[in-house]
């Protein structure tokens, strides 16, 4: 499954009030679909998507928090699986885009790429559930059930790059991006309408 195809499927299931925390190429490809005010793009240090998401999930229990993590990123912060599981945020969905490489850093392979099993690790740490999809049709069919279940959930997406979007690092680290998110988060608007396509 191509990453851009997977993101297009996810886009259709994201609500206006949802917070999306994304990192690296998944973030840039997500922004290419049209930036949302509640896209949390300034994660700063590699590996911390899940813990940014945890902070948001606990501080904003009325919203769904959707994390788009990378395989290399999550390997850098594997202990966060236990931290998230211990905190038990019901509004936390942890998507991991697995392509087996550090894509934006020269496409070097991640260690043990053929063996690493994030769904198994998440379940072993105490996530409420875990899924794996490697086909866009199966993702489309299975996503509603995954999003209807109570978190924390891990959903691994086996992807290949697909169309690669420009990497606008200046924007994701900008004060403007953080200000935009803060303003949207505190606007008081919490609706369940899906995002426009």
């Amino acid at each position, binding site marked *: 499954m191509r990453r851009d195809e997977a993101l297009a499927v996810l886009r259709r299931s994201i609500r206006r009030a949802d917070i999306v925390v994304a990192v690296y190429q998944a973030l840039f490809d997500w922004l290419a679909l049209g930036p949302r005010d509640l896209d949390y793009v300034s994660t700063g*240090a590699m590996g911390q998507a899940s*813990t*940014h998401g945890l*902070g948001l999930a*606990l*501080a904003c229990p009325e919203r769904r928090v959707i994390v788009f993590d990378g395989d290399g990123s999550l390997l850098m912060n594997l*202990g966060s699986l236990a931290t998230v599981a*211990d905190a038990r945020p019901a509004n936390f969905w942890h998507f991991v885009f697995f392509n087996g490489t550090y894509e934006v850093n020269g496409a070097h392979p991640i260690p043990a790429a053929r063996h690493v099993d994030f769904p198994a690790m998440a379940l072993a740490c105490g996530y409420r559930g875990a899924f794996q999809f490697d086909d866009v049709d199966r993702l489309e069919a299975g996503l509603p059930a995954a999003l209807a279940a109570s978190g924390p959930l891990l959903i691994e997406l086996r992807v290949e790059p697909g169309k690669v979007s420009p990497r606008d690092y200046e924007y994701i680290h900008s004060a403007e991006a953080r200000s935009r998110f803060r303003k949207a988060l*505190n606007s008081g608007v919490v609706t369940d309408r899906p995002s426009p396509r």
Partner: protein
Amino acid sequence: MKTTAKNYAGSAIIAQLKAAEIKFVAAVPDIVTSDGLLWPIAGDPDIRLLRISREAEGIPICAAMSYNGTRAIVLMQQTGLMDTLNEVRAIAIDYRLPIVMMVGLQGKEDDCLPEFSGSYGVRVVIPVLCAMELPFSLIEHAEHISVIRRQIDWGYRRSRPHVILLGQSPELP
């Protein structure tokens, strides 16, 4: 340089945290603060303790919470602070976010200031904070405790990080 040790109670620190409207404490256990502070926080109904796997996790947790004004601190030992400097640099300093870190100084002698400690790991903490341009406060005596609330308020009002160094092991009430 010598200092006159006069330990303070963990309950006084917790009172300061509550006065500063801290709702979450993200912590890795530290022997300096374990009995007098961390265990009491674990049993306190007004503060939620998040048991994190690594100190660096606490920085993004506090950062993310700050976006809607939810106040939190990271509680750790100076070894954890040293391990988390990149997250502090990227998220707290570069992004100018109100990350408050409370740090127990494991190995510091009771009767001297950190920069004069016989422990290298303690002695370098303040120089490292200065090099990173990180504002900090040192709590050595009970009279210093009121600084905690003021500095947390300052950090959140100005959206800036602050490190609170605990020079003594907090005592049980």
